[in-house]
């Protein structure tokens, strides 16, 4: 290990796997033509397992790679990854993964926060044309006659509530399904799942 980046071997193994999960989830959703992204599963997973720092690192690398490989519109949305890592780390400490209903409630709350933030980014920087299924929702709302800011806000908001809700519920389910051998290595997540 060098003098500049001091992270544990566990995080060294976990970060590439989580980034790969983010990238592959995005590809699976695209193949299924679903109006969600699910490209934050790895970020949420690492934020639950090791806290905000790990989640933010995974989110940053993922968004950089997604941005470079599919278009730079993704790059400013790195802020959403950080916000999500922060909210999920808070949810983990406050027992947000203790039961399915608490997980769903935190999922909706995270979705609302991230939806509001991504609507602002999508409108101010890209006038709503960010790519992905959400643009079709925005376009449909424009056809109905809604002004662009309203269409972008509704499109991004609803998509993000759904997207982040699914991601957080999926990670909560995974947390409960993980073998004790693995979960035991992450005290933060073990406590969150046992609460």
């Amino acid at each position, binding site marked *: *290990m*060098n*003098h*500049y*980046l*001091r992270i*544990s*071997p*566990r995080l*060294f*193994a*976990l*970060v*590439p*796997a*989580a*980034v*790969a*999960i983010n*990238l*592959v*989830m995005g*590809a*699976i*959703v695209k*193949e*299924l*033509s*679903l109006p969600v992204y*699910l490209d934050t*599963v790895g970020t949420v*997973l690492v934020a639950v397992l090791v806290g905000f720092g790990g989640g933010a690192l995974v989110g940053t*690398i993922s968004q950089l*790679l997604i*941005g*470079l*490989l*599919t*278009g*730079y*519109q993704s790059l400013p949305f790195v802020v959403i990854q950080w916000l999500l890592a922060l909210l999920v780390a808070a949810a983990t400490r406050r027992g947000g993964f203790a039961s399915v209903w608490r997980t769903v409630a935190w999922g909706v709350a995270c979705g609302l926060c991230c939806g509001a933030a991504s609507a602002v980014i999508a409108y101010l920087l*890209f*006038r709503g*044309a960010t*790519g992905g299924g959400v*643009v*079709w929702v*925005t*376009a449909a709302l*424009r*056809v109905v006659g809604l002004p*662009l800011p309203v269409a972008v806000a509704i499109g991004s908001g609803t998509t993000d509530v759904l997207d982040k809700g699914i991601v957080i519920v*999926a990670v909560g*389910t*995974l947390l409960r*399904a*993980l*073998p004790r051998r*693995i979960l035991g*290595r992450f005290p933060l997540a073990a406590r969150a799942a046992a609460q």
Partner: protein
Amino acid sequence: MTLARRAHPFTSGTVTLALIALALVLSSTRQTAALYIATIVIALSTGAGRGVRTGLVTVAPIWVLLFLLQGVLGDGARIAAPWGGTLSGPGLHWALSQGTRLAVIATASLAFASSFDPHRFLQAAIARRWSFGAAFLLVATLDAADRLGEQARQLREAQRARGLHVTGSLRTRAGALPALVFPLLLASMTEADDRALALETRGLMLRGPRTATDPPHDTAPDRIVRWLAFVAVLAGVIWRVRS
């Protein structure tokens, strides 16, 4: 071996970053369109033509969305469309500008990715005394993305063989998601756990300088190309500030 693969890993990386920076710096549609053509020429002439094809496949759907949302449904003065009806003038202009900029970035990145050799990059990073942790993280991430992508493909085929439907109504497609996602997540978590043990026992955490056993040659043409890329970006920034 193609020119892109023969070049020092930092050279292709620098050219890619320079093209991305220029795409963000240049303002007019003509300039970004010219840069897109230049990117295609560079990719094809260095043997990274696969990046051009995959770039086109990546950006084509976004071009359609940009045209629809800004050109057809956009606000501002309307202009006559060649096929009848009208289009938003400012919207169309914005869509073209964004579309070409996006194409440059996707094509340059994908061309770089198609010729990227993780081993050579890691060796070059060690030889330059770069942060080994950061270089390893980048290489391990790209490697993991490839492996997990392949696992996802195999899993999809296996689940389809077991009767899972991945096409059809929204409900059917959404219903297929857990069967595709959960096995993959569990597998990657187990693999990450095993890998952590392997990294620890193989001395990843050792301190001190490392030895590059097979560093790639950094030739004079490589250095010239990197300097030219730097000068091009600098010129672009100066031109943008002055105009």
